[in-house]
């Protein structure tokens, strides 16, 4: 009897082992296809293992890359534990952990491969490539975003703005909204007249404060003063010599937060704004009950617009359009960046753990081939897009809806979104590199309320809506590429971390305070204790360096 018991236990164990063996077996064995891994220190959706386009790309290039995204940890924690464990993926985009990876000496220099692989080389000019060089003179990563091939095709405002639902504008008779006061006035009047949407209470305004995405509440003062997105500081060039200005302490900052405070106390701002996670925030926007917020387009629009399309909310005017607000009326605004923004502080890198480094670079090169690039962003011809007699790509309404479906995206589409890619015009000189920039796609894809709104404001696209000053980037732009790469080894870097901590805690408190003046003063005291001057000094040094470098 005892033996039988033992046998049972053993049998159970054996069964488990078999289950495992099976689990272990159903991988590998892809013939000649090389399997690489990639870790991206950003949240993202995993695609299925048997994703169709990934398979097609694998057959054409001989390489398949399994992407793993950030979950349950911050980027720095994830990169830190990867470094500690010493198990590196083949490709990595470490976000603000790039410097840590470089310091660790685990990244492979790109230099020799750039000469070997023309598509890669073509991504940037020599001067731009130079800006990626680290202290030791080598290039270890390339940023893959905001890089235009040929003619610029931008139709969206891929930047920050105060956004407003088109149904609010329609209701208000498409008024001109230029200042914060006018903005909140429209939002609150609309909310009073239409307190619910689809049975849920409308939220006139919300703001995201989570981790680094608190820029949604934090950096509006720089734009409200009419400056472009240098991110961490204002660069004031009005006196001739560019000078760093701290936007956290300007009168505009105070006015802006006072306005938020007033609106919060009046019940017009989401009471969960300070504690909501990015996920909750996106879910809230997706219901269509949030009338407005301040955010970057790329931070919400791709996901939220897909949901609107799926749920038919776009037909009800839930889509957001950007407003070029300034603190006073009649100021110029620089919310929109017309040129490419070169953020050299992070990007895709190949690690020394990679078994076949040459194949890895070859793959980075291959996926820039127009054919593969089309597969990544347009999909399969005849299935995901059609070609008319002029050679222009287009999608039917059905295709558009399908491509917005998360299940379809997981099983069929594969855009290797953190790998080298282009914006702008395709090599054929006609089409856009990415569908959302194809003019016909853009207009055909617009829901009726959006079209009416654009007409009312005499705009052809989102950038027209916001009406920023048309100008080229300054040579030092963007300053955030420097602050992003700061480490706590310098006094400025330490101050930068501390300032962030102070602002994370105090900005929501200031907004929620019942006594604005005293709370603001307490915030200012805490802020000064973080020694922001150390940070500003280092930023000024870098600014001077960049100005000089540009003059050479």
């Amino acid at each position, binding site marked *: 009897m005892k033996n039988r018991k033992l046998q049972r236990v053993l049998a159970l164990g054996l069964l488990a082992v078999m289950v495992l063996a099976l689990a272990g077996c159903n991988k590998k064995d892809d013939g000649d296809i090389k399997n690489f891994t990639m870790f991206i220190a950003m949240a993202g959706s995993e695609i299925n293992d048997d994703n169709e386009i990934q398979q097609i790309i694998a057959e054409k290039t001989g390489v398949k890359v399994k992407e793993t995204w950030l979950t349950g940890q911050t980027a720095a924690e994830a990169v*830190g534990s990867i470094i500690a464990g010493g198990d590196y993926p083949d490709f990595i985009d470490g976000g603000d952990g790039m410097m840590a990876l470089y310091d660790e000496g685990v990244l492979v220099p790109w230099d020799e491969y750039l000469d070997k692989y023309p598509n890669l080389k073509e991504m940037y000019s020599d001067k731009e490539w130079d800006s990626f060089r680290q202290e030791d003179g080598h290039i270890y990563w390339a940023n893959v975003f905001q890089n235009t091939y040929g003619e610029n095709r931008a139709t969206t405002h891929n930047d920050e703005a105060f956004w407003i639902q088109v149904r609010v504008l329609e209701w208000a008779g498409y008024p001109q909204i230029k200042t914060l006061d006018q903005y909140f006035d429209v939002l609150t009047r609309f909310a009073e007249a239409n307190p619910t949407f689809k049975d849920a209470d409308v939220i006139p305004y919300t703001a995201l404060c989570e981790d680094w995405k608190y820029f949604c509440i934090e950096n509006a003062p720089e734009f409200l003063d009419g400056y472009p997105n240098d991110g961490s500081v204002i660069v004031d060039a009005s006196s001739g010599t560019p000078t760093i200005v701290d936007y956290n302490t300007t009168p505009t900052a105070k006015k802006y937060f006072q306005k938020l405070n007033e609106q919060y106390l009046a019940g017009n701002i989401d009471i*969960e704004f300070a504690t909501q996670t990015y996920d909750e925030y996106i879910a809230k926007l997706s219901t269509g009950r949030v009338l407005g917020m301040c955010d970057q387009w790329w931070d919400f629009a791709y996901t939220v617009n897909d949901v609107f399309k799926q749920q038919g909310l776009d037909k009800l005017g839930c889509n957001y359009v950007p407003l070029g607000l300034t603190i006073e009326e009649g100021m110029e605004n620089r919310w929109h960046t017309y040129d490419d923004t070169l953020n050299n502080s992070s990007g895709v890198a190949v690690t020394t753990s990679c078994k076949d480094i040459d194949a890895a670079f070859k793959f980075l090169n291959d996926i820039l081939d127009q054919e593969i690039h089309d597969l990544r962003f347009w999909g399969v011809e005849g299935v995901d897009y059609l070609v008319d007699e002029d050679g222009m790509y287009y999608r039917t309404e059905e295709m558009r809806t399908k491509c917005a479906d998360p299940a379809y995206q997981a099983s069929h589409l594969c855009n290797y979104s953190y790998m080298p890619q282009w914006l702008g015009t395709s090599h054929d000189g006609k089409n856009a590199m990415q569908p959302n920039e194809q003019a016909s796609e853009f207009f055909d894809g617009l829901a009726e309320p959006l079209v009416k709104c654009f007409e009312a404001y005499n705009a052809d696209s989102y950038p027209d809506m916001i009406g920023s000053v048309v100008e080229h980037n300054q040579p030092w732009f963007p300053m955030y590429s420097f602050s992003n790469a700061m480490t706590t080894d310098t006094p400025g870097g330490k101050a930068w971390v501390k300032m962030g901590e102070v602002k994370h*805690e105090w900005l929501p408190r200031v907004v929620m305070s019942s006594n604005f003046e005293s709370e603001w003063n307490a915030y200012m005291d805490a802020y000064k204790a973080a020694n922001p001057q150390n940070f500003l000094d280092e930023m000024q040094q870098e600014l001077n360096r960049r100005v000089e470098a540009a003059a050479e």
Partner: protein
Amino acid sequence: MKAKRISWKELKNQKFLLICTACFVVYGIIFYYLPLGGWIMAFQNYKTKDGFFDSQWVGFEKFKFLFSDATFLRVIRNTLAMGVLNLVCTFVMAIVFAILLNEVRLAIGKKFVQTVSYLPHFLSWIIVTGILHDALSSSGIINELLVKLGILDTPINFFAHKGYFWPIVAFANVWKETGWNAIVYLAAITSIDPSLYEAATIDGAGRWAKIKNITLPGIRPTIMILLIMNIGNVLNAGFEVQYLLGNGLVKSVSETIDIYTLTWGVSQNDFSLGTAAGIFKSVVAIILIVAANQFAKKTGEQRLF
């Protein structure tokens, strides 16, 4: 204490036990004692590329930094405060629950309540914090109730106020573990001599009086030993709960030593500082448990070892 002579014969007879011991010791050394070697990192400026041998030695510098860092001191405060609060709340609740449940005469009702009470223990913190987060959100059940009962005019955001954080964590612990912890007390209560209750009934004692005079003294030894066992865990106030429920606004009250270790040790790549914080925690835990044990010895209560 007297040194025992070990004869060869004895060893030979215990061959099986010795072989097992050898295996267990090897296993223990590999998985538990070898990582302790990592403690050297606390005295180095450890860099992974240099390894243990080539990293720079810095002596007690990391510890010095630790105790001069206002954040670390605050983190100790948070850990202790939440640890004590959790300990007290879960203890009191488990005892109260056990006593009250014991007073239930209806057998099926008792069984049902008890079975339900274990349930949360089996749920992971991910699930528990998820549920709690939803319940306390502005459209959650708690706000809905408070507004309906007229206690609040408008929903409040519980996670935005520092004052609520510790109680929320304590509540989460109570919710999860009350039923489970009560098992021991319930068993202890059943082992109390029933004749004591009979005698009390004859004397005309009410239920309260019986609880106060018989039940509570009866389970006193159990309470004491569990208290001692748990005191060493005060610094384990938690990681997951705070990690999953915290946010920027309440960070100054939500961060515990474990989270501090994680942020410095892993995010800022200062493994040495993280390890130093970990050592501090281990040392305090040992001191606490030994002290509690000594205290128990003195007062004549049961001891752990």
